[in-house]
């Protein structure tokens, strides 16, 4: 069954969209990530124009994160104060990201920017996560206790603030910068940024793991909602119909994924996620480095 998407102006198979949404939903349920970093490249692959793919996946992330945030709010595992600091950075970053996105779109380099961002960030995060989880698995086998966190330069910065839920007393500068970077990425890559923010919160800010996911979801919802609006207003590239089909698949997939995730160990999950991130990164890097089969591409101009 084909459906014509009004904004992407392309006709695609409904079950393909539901399947894509479902696949990403399973992964996000298993690993607790938004899945934006997977859905955007997959949409490119289906033939959705990159600008529409980026804007629409931002809209889809709002939906998939919202049900997650509700669950975390009920369990009181959201550090609202930290969330707001991250959010302020995030909104500034998102506005900045949209600005860069539009300049590069006019120059015809948006594709390169998005791909480069993916390669660099997926490579770095995937690599770190792989090494870290491999060490964790080896440590558990060897029976050594997990290492304790140390005080770093982070704790020496000014403008300190108490974050009671996280049990932290640190400067607002690092969280604001983390938020800013994630905001820029959300706008450029069409991702929520959970896969960057979660490690940053644990390793850089030293937040307790139980509040990390809820707080990052809180920040992600507002930042991606803001990016969706900005893309809708400046580029008219949010495809509501596309988002709805991805959503339906995603919601069902997430429930299946959560059930699979419960049966696996945390380190195993992390190493699988790391491998998947590295795989996506490798594919994108390969495309950049190897001569493309079609060297020419067509871009639209405003009449």
């Amino acid at each position: 069954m084909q459906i014509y998407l009004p904004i992407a102006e392309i006709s695609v198979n409904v079950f393909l969209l539901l399947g894509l949404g479902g696949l990403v939903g399973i992964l996000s349920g298993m690993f607790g990530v938004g899945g934006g970093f997977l859905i955007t490249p997959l949409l490119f692959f289906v033939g959705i124009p990159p600008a529409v793919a980026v804007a629409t996946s931002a809209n889809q992330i709002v939906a998939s994160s919202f049900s997650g945030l509700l669950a975390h709010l009920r369990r009181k595992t959201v550090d609202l104060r930290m969330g707001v600091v991250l959010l302020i950075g995030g909104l500034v970053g998102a506005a900045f990201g949209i600005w860069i996105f539009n300049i590069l779109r006019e120059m015809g380099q948006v594709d390169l920017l998005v791909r480069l961002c993916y390669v660099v960030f997926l490579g770095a995060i995937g690599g770190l996560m792989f090494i870290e989880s491999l060490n964790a698995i080896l440590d558990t086998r060897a029976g050594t206790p997990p290492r304790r966190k140390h005080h770093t330069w982070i704790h020496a910065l000014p403008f300190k603030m108490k974050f009671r839920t996280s049990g932290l007393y640190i400067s607002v500068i690092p969280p604001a910068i983390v938020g800013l970077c994630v905001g820029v990425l959300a706008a450029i890559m069409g991702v929520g940024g959970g896969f960057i923010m979660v490690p940053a919160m644990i390793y850089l800010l030293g937040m307790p793991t139980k509040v990390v996911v809820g707080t990052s979801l809180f920040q992600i919802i507002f930042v991606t909602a803001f990016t969706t609006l900005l893309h809708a207003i400046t580029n008219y590239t949010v495809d509501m119909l596309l988002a709805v089909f991805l959503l339906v698949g995603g919601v069902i997939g997430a429930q299946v994924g959560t059930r699979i995730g419960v049966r696996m160990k945390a380190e195993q999950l992390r190493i699988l996620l790391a491998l998947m991130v590295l795989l996506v990164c490798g594919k994108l890097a390969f495309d950049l480095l190897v001569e493309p089969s079609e060297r020419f591409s067509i871009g639209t101009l405003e009449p």
Partner: protein
Amino acid sequence: MIRALCLLLVLSWPGVAQAEDLVAGLSKSRISISANFDGSEILIFGAVKRAAPAPEGQIGLIVTVEGPKNPLVVRRKDKQANIWINSAGVQVDGAPSFYAVNTSGPIDEVLDEASDAAHRITVRKAIQSVGDPEDVADPSIFTDALIRIREEANLYQLNVGAVEVSDQTLFNTSVALPANLVEGAYTSRVFLTRGGAIVAEYASIIDVEKVGLERFLYVLAHDQPAVYGLLSLAIAIAAGWGASAVFRYIQS
């Protein structure tokens, strides 16, 4: 003097001056893009009307269907600092979003170069002149690439022998429009040629437009982008909340 005037009148009067004329029709003059739009087919048919017996020369029929023209830019990737990035680009003033040419025989037999240039019939002529870029040595390879990419996507078609002609009089052909159509006014033209030269021409418009939900969303997204953006978010949040509520209900 009077004889000369009469001759002029006869020559300028189309019905008399041309020994042959075209009568043509389309199976539809309007295509609606609804949510389940999956491409469409147009039948173009007609007859050659003539007062006298058929003249000398090989008969040829050419049918074109052309989508709205848009300016675009064709970019080429080049290797810079070890990665392939878009470098050179050529602007095209107007390239049809869709272009099909159906002919009754090989294109060089049914159409001569001069008629093609005058009526912009083949796809290469239909693409409006490429502006002169300073930094690109050979702009024609960019036009070649544009045609190649759109031919692969089935947006540019050349169907040789697709026009059926019977008894040098009746003809019919069909053009398949793909699912990823762009809205706008499409032009269908029919040319009758003798020995490659055009002797009669017929043109008609096909309106392609989104209808129903497609139209509503498209118009809203462009006229009220803020409302549209907020609506997208509201739907997303409602879906997320609804899903969590449903699954909690199932679990309890």
